């Protein structure tokens, strides 16, 4: 049986990624009226997964190549809607953040679905009734 559990790693990675993204989106919504606040988001899971699969230098100290100060991997979102930058320097568009939240929920449900189905397949393979 060529079932090397990468799919389980991937599913749990996707679930973690969606949780981390939801945390950023919640912070954006909470700060939707804070002057000078810039909305933040994570890169796509696909990009994060691809970069974690290829061989690269590991950054274990702040001075190393590839080390990013502060929260790793977050980036400021480009304000999607025209005019979402308000006069007080805040660029959170609530509608845009809601769209992201819906996408995150889909991501999370996909991850949990893949996880449970893979476990079902494993159980079937070892001959247990579900």
């Amino acid at each position: 049986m060529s079932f090397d559990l990468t799919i389980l790693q991937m599913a749990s990675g996707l679930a973690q990624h969606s949780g981390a993204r939801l945390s950023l989106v919640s912070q954006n919504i909470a700060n939707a009226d804070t002057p000078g606040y810039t909305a933040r988001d994570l890169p796509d899971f696909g990009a994060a997964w691809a970069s974690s699969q290829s061989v690269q230098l590991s950054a274990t100290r702040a001075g190393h190549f590839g080390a990013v100060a502060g929260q790793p991997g977050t980036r400021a979102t480009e304000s999607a809607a025209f005019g979402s930058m308000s006069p007080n320097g805040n660029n959170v568009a609530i509608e845009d953040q809601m769209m992201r939240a819906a996408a995150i929920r889909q991501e999370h449900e996909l991850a949990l679905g893949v996880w449970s189905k893979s476990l079902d397949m494993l159980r079937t393979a070892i001959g247990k009734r579900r």
Partner: protein
Amino acid sequence: MTDLIASMAASASGMAAQSARMRLVGENIANADTPGYHRKLVSFESLAAGTVAAGRVTLDQTQPARHFDPSHPMADAAGYYDGSNVNLVLEIADAREAQRGYEANLRLFDQARQMSSAALTLLRR
């Protein structure tokens, strides 16, 4: 899982901040006819963990409206007294914005709760 908890904490702090703002709107509207009242303003500030809190309350220093009523007990020699500088339209707009922000926070809180309970149901199988 800790991310989802952090997300709920951020949403809850957002709801608290918006309700603090709503309270000030209520106080301003209640005092719209109080002579000499200055409307209260609050600005939000973000805290370290991504949460938000209502900052210091400041008073709007706009000149209050002057009303002519010689029979008013607070009228000066010319018959004018200072009203409040509350603008009801502005307050209603502020209340609407606070409500919209509160609802968005509430929705995100609910989504984080649902996502964490969906993850926990996997344990129950």
